[in-house]
Structures are given as C-alpha cells and as structure tokens.
C-alpha cells in the first residue's frame, strides 16, 4: 500500500543552530489491509514521517511510493487517502455539518453521499446533536471525533492518523478504537501513530517503531513481543502453611486471605508446581505474563 524508503530528513539550521537530523535512513512498509501502529517517544520523528508521506514537507533523501491500487495519478492516490493531523483544530466559525460538507465536496463526493456518510457516522461518534453548532464550541474530544469522521467520510482505502487517541477520555478512546477496528475490518489499511503502547498492542497487527529518528523495528506485533526476555508465569495459591521452596523463584508476594502469588521462569515452572502439590496448597491459577510492548518499549529505550 505504501513504501517509505531510505528517508532522511534534516531540518536546516536557522541562523546559528546546528542542523537537526529528524529522520535518518528510515525504511518501512505498510502492507495492504494491515493495521499498523507507529510507535515512538516524543520527538522520535513520527509526525515528520507522516508529513513526508503526505508531501507537506520534502525529504532530503529517499522515496515514498504508493501502490497502484490507490491509483496512478497524484489526484487518484489522494482521493483514496484519509489523513488526520495531530491536535486538529478546524475553521472555528463553520458548523460541524458545514465542515463535513466542505471536506466531502473537496473529496469529490456527491451531496447525497455526504448526507448519507454524516447520517451513518455522526450518531456513532455522538456528535449528531452538535452538527449545527460552530466548531469553536466543540470540546477537544468532539473535535477529534469530527476530524476522524471527516477522515473516513470519503471511504479512503488508506487511513493515516497522527495520534488519533490523544485528548480522549477512556470511553472516547474505546469508541474510537472500535470504529478504527470496524473500518479496518471493512478492508481499509490503517496507519496510526501513538505513544500509548497498550492501544497499539490491542488493535494493531504490525508496528513500526522509531527511536530518535532511526527505525528500531518494523514487523508483526507478536514477533516484537516474543523478541523480549524469557517468558514468565505467575502462580497463585492459598495456604496457611509456611512456604519454603527449594527451586528459585523470581518473586513472592502474599496477600490477605493467605493468598500467595509467585513469579517463576518457564524452565522452573514444572519443578515448582510439583513442590507446591507436595505441600498440598490450594492452587487458584497460573497465568502467562506476556511482556507488554510497554516493557519492550522501555527495554529498547534503555539500550
């Protein structure tokens, strides 16, 4: 769907500042039909990359190519893309409906298509009550939602979002994530940036990970998860006896109600379970701890 090849972007110095390398030789690919998360700390270069993809700024080196399913000419390609900038703020005096109509018209939709699109999505986003109000009266979350609505109104094949979930409350995030998943299921390719690792872990199948302008990882989410450290298990049980285990355990916590929780490595799991059985404890559960992207995130950051 989209190829980002060997992109280098250097911000030229203003007067006496040093030139700043915002992206250095970054390459990644967005496969058709995938949901790709774009991860990186503040200042990693996510927004800069998206601006280069959208041709708002130009790279010093490298090439962005769109696959032919989006179209051959620039106009066709852009008709099939929906882009939502970070912290969007729209024409304050237009009403929500006027803004959406405007966005629909420049995307070459007919007025019937626009009406149908608004009718379909406005209630989903809970902004139908505010459509006749000027945008300056919208809250941050409402602006984010109407921005997202404007982004998918023309049914683009490729949806690119810069921090779509920021500024939303937990319920708002959930709702927006649900809609993102829904449009993805309809066959749209989605690429969105975020620093919120669990969000990406939850809904993306791939992730592109930038750190200080360099590519750290580009591939499936679960492979990145597996590339972490050894897998651990948590064993929970109840007992009134004193516990003294032979095998090494990673940690041991006790809770009220004589509840114990121990963390063990994969290789020790069997031995410890045997010991516990011998002690005749009341076993209440074994869980696998997947290292979350969050941990990997900080792990890679530390290296």
């Amino acid at each position: 769907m989209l190829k980002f090849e060997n992109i280098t972007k250097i911000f030229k110095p203003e007067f006496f500042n040093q030139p700043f390398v915002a992206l250095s030789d970054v390459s990644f690919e967005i496969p058709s039909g995938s949901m790709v998360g774009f991860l990186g700390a503040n200042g990693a270069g996510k927004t800069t990359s998206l601006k280069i993809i959208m041709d708002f700024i130009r790279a010093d080196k490298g090439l962005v190519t769109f696959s032919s399913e989006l179209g051959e000419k620039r106009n066709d390609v852009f008709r099939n893309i929906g882009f939502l900038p970070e912290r969007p703020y729209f024409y304050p005096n237009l009403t929500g409906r006027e803004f959406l109509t405007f966005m629909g018209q420049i995307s070459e939709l007919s007025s019937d298509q626009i009406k149908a699109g608004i009718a379909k999505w406005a209630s989903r986003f809970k902004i139908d009550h505010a459509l006749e109000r000027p945008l300056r009266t919208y809250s941050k979350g409402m602006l984010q939602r109407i921005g997202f609505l404007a982004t998918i109104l023309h049914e683009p094949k490729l949806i690119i979002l810069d921090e779509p979930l920021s500024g939303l409350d937990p319920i708002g995030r959930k709702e927006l994530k649900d809609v993102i998943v829904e449009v993805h299921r309809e066959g749209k390719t989605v690429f969105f940036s975020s620093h919120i690792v669990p969000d990406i872990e939850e809904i993306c199948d791939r992730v592109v990970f930038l750190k200080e302008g360099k590519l750290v990882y580009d591939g499936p989410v679960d492979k990145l998860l597996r590339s972490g450290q050894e897998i651990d298990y948590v064993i929970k049980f109840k007992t009134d006896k004193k516990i003294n285990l032979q095998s090494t355990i990673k940690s041991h916590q006790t809770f009220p109600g004589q509840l114990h929780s121990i963390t063990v490595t994969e290789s020790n799991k069997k031995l410890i379970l045997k010991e516990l059985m011998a002690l005749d404890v009341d076993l209440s559960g074994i869980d696998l701890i997947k290292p979350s992207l969050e941990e990997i995130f900080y792990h890679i950051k530390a290296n």
Partner: protein
Amino acid sequence: MMLDKILIISKYTFKELIKSRILYVTLIIGIALMVVTYVATEFTYGVPEKVALDFGLGMLSLSSVGISLFMGASLLFKEIDSRTVYMVISRPVPRWVFITGKITGLIFILLLNIGILTVMTLTCSYLLGGEINQAILMSILFNFLESVLLLLVVVFLSLFINNTLATIISLTVLLLGHAIKDTKNILFVQQRPYIQYVLDLYHFVLPNFYKLNLKDYVIYNQTLSLDFLLGSFAYGVCYSLFLFFMIIFLFNRKNLD
C-alpha cells in the same frame, strides 16, 4: 473539476470570514457615513453631497485596505497554525487550487465590503443632490484593484515572514507606493540625483499604488484621460497577476510545517 474545487474552497473561506463578523466593521462605517452625511447637511453650506462622497470613498478605501492587510496576513498563517491546510491538501486538492481558493474567498469579502459601502455612499450622495458619474465608479473599481494588489502583497510576504511583520511591511509598501509620486517632485529630491536613482529603482520594482488612486480626480472633478485609465488598470492587473503566480510558485515549494 479544479475550478469547482477552487469555488468550494473560496465559498467556505468566505463563509468562515463572514461568520467571523468582520463585516460588522463595514456596517459601522455605513452608519458613520449616514451620521456624517446628516451632520454635513446641517452644518456645511453648499456641498453636503461632496462631504458624503469624500467620506464614503475614503472609508471604502480604508476598510478595503484594512481587510486586505489583516485578513490577508492571517489567511495562510491560520491555516497552517490550526493544521486545517493539512486536512485540505491531503485530499485531491493540489496546492495551487487551495491557495487560489483561499485568495478568491477573501476577494469575495472585499467585493462585498466595497459593494455595501458603494451603495450607501452613492445613496447618501444622490439623496443630497450629487450626481453619480463614471469617474466615481471608476475610482471605486480602482480601489478594488488596489486592495486586491495589496492583498497579494501581504499573502506573498506571509510566505516568508510571520504575519505581523508581513502586515507592517505591506502597510509600508502601500504608503510608500502612494507617496512616491509626490516625493519625486520635491525640490530637495530633484536636486539630489542619487536619491532620485533610489526612487526610480523603487518605482520600477515595488507596486506604484498611487496609480490606482483616483479619489482626487473625483472630488475635484478633474477629467481623466482614457490612456491614463487603461495604463493604470493594466499596470494593476499585471502586477497582481505577477504576484499571484509568484505566490503559487512559492507555495508549491514551501515546506508546510
């Protein structure tokens, strides 16, 4: 197709500006015009219709200049600052279509402002017994041309520098553009060839706004030669087109960040 999109963008630019209530200024000026006219009929002997005309045309010119300067400077700045430009040009909208639509939308605002004040001025003047002649209409047309030219100067500058600076420099260019004709005739300057040289250069490069100012001719009933009118008109149009194409050329290459 592209023409449609230019019209859509100009329509919503117009709507957005109308709702920002800048035309309240026009209405206030209109009311002031009526008050001045009333006062003039009470207190001036002989020529109240001239007072109405003079005041009306002056205000028309001043308000157009004001709209061009301030709205023009923020036209692009606001778009980039609020990232709405990203929403628009991420659609099948080439940059030249976007900028042409924005400028056209603002030109419609200028037209509306001029239209309202023209009707009010002419009505006041007519009711007081003044005549509506071609020179007045010509002067208003040239006024419109002046404000469009100024608008393009501001937008052009705002591609390089921030909007406050763009406003100040444009205002300076406007004032100099009006003053240059008289400056060249000052004895002090005439005696000093090097100043003349600088002025000639300026005259050649920067817009000569004085060419578009016909108010004095109207007020003092001087006659205008067709050659002069055509020459000035062509000058204004050509300069505007030149700036317009420069704006498109530069905006296409501009980094929008």
